[in-house]
């Protein structure tokens, strides 16, 4: 058990490290006048959501686990009775902390879509409420033996709970706040891609904890998940770069980074359920598919600034559905129905699709209501002048770079 505890301890630290990584992944892509605001949104997500999760979120998600239901209960409010364990099980407080790091990064993913225009106070309320009304229920469905799990759908590390969930929420918020000023007219190039690449490195590193840590043990399944989390993003990078090269003339560093992240997203639901070559295929396909999904935002007239839809929503859906094709009982005994391509029929595939649609719809609708309510009351978007001058100066009274 000590070895398992050691692995989940470090995995928790790794996943927490992803949120700063995400901050910089996104932050390098925004204009420099909004860099600190992006960092702030992400770091603040740690501050607020750790407390929300401790007080109520964990209980709502993991109370009455295994009930096949829609939401947890209030048994664990304030981490009551979430103890240290007796040495023979994973300490419950450790499991709660590991899950906390997922609850933190999921709403933070939204900030990529809404870059450069969110009011800070509105954002704070948004993610706090969202965490309770959207994240905890969906986590209950899929991670805590709720109806999704009972139905038979699988989600190793958060294809449904994290990526589709956040991706759908991003669309909802975009529908409420609209596009950046100047969107489509002026180019808004990344102000400093090196930060984005640094963020990518940190994300990849942390994702080993995210996926392989979700085995909750230091065993062969964790090992396979680790392998898959290295190889699928690698293959996705190749996939993305190949399309990029075919469609334009250049392979870009942002493409390499984006492809890798797309692969991380897609392999998330599959990590501990699929074999080695399946991971290569899923990754490679994800790189291509997420690249092609970039056009969606234009078609849908959504100013998804940093492509949360293409990378997280589409990547999450693709990964969740791909699990219905590649799930492999020889990798993980939990797999009852193997994937279609392994001769397990369409059972799992259908469950995966149903679950994806359900999470997408639930998150989209509830998030829309929350965002609309905030926008109508305290406001969710800054005024035009703030947007011109930059969020850093107006909201946070700071400037990212000071030379004089």
């Amino acid at each position, binding site marked *: 058990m000590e070895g398992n505890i050691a692995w989940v301890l470090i995995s928790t630290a790794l996943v927490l490290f992803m949120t700063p990584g995400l901050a910089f992944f996104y932050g390098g892509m925004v204009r420099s006048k909004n860099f600190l605001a992006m960092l702030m949104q992400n770091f603040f997500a740690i501050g607020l959501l750790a407390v929300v999760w401790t007080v109520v979120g964990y209980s709502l998600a993991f109370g009455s686990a295994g009930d096949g239901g829609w939401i947890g209960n209030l048994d664990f409010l304030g981490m009551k009775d979430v103890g240290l364990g007796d040495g023979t099980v994973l300490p419950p407080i450790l499991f709660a902390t590991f899950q906390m790091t997922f609850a933190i990064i999921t709403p933070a993913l939204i900030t990529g879509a809404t870059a450069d225009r969110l009011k800070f106070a509105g954002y704070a309320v948004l993610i706090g409420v969202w965490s309770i009304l959207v994240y905890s229920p969906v986590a209950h469905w899929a991670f805590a033996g709720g109806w999704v799990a009972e139905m038979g759908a699988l989600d190793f590390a958060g294809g449904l709970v994290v990526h589709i969930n956040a991706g759908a929420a991003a669309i909802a918020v975009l529908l409420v706040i609209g596009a950046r000023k100047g969107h489509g007219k002026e180019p808004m190039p990344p102000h400093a891609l090196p930060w984005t690449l640094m963020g990518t490195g940190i994300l990849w590193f942390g994702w080993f904890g995210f996926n392989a840590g979700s085995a909750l043990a230091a065993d062969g399944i964790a090992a396979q998940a680790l392998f898959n989390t290295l190889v699928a993003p690698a293959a996705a990078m190749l996939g993305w770069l190949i399309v990029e090269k075919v469609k334009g003339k250049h392979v870009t560093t942002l493409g390499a980074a984006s492809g890798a992240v797309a692969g991380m997203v897609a392999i998330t639901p599959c990590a501990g359920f699929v074999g080695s070559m399946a991971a290569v295929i899923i990754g490679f396909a994800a790189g291509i598919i997420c690249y092609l999904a970039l056009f969606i935002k234009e078609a849908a007239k959504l100013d998804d600034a940093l492509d949360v839809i293409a990378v997280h929503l589409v990547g999450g859906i693709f990964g969740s559905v791909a699990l219905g094709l590649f799930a492999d009982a020889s990798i993980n005994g939990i797999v009852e129905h193997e994937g279609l391509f392994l001769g397990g029929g369409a059972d799992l595939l259908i469950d995966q699709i149903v679950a994806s649609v359900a999470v997408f719809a639930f998150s989209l609708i509830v998030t829309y209501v929350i965002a609309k309510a905030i926008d109508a009351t305290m406001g969710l978007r800054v005024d035009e002048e703030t947007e011109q001058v930059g969020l850093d100066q107006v909201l946070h*009274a700071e400037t990212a770079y000071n030379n004089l």
Partner: protein
Amino acid sequence: MKIITAVIKPFRLDEVKEALKGAGVAGITVTEVQGFGRQAGHTEVYRGTEYQVDFVPKVRLELIVDEADVDRLVEVITNAARTGKIGDGKIWVTEAERLIRIRTGEQGHDAI
């Protein structure tokens, strides 16, 4: 030949550049600068201490043009750069005695 120097708000640069292109301008040299003027600076906060930042980011454009084009181009810049709010900036005109294109050695009007 004349030199038109304009100090404008950074987020108008694109507009001004396009307007000048439209007006047939063949070359501009642009510098990032910090301006101090009527437009108040802003307050920044450092661990509980407020301090005043007097300088506001601006962009400085420099164009060498034929004397005949000066009025027109000043107009073009003014229109494209104006937001009507304080801090829109200034344009000034000075005399250039000579102009040389390094590549060809062309001088004066031909070098513009």
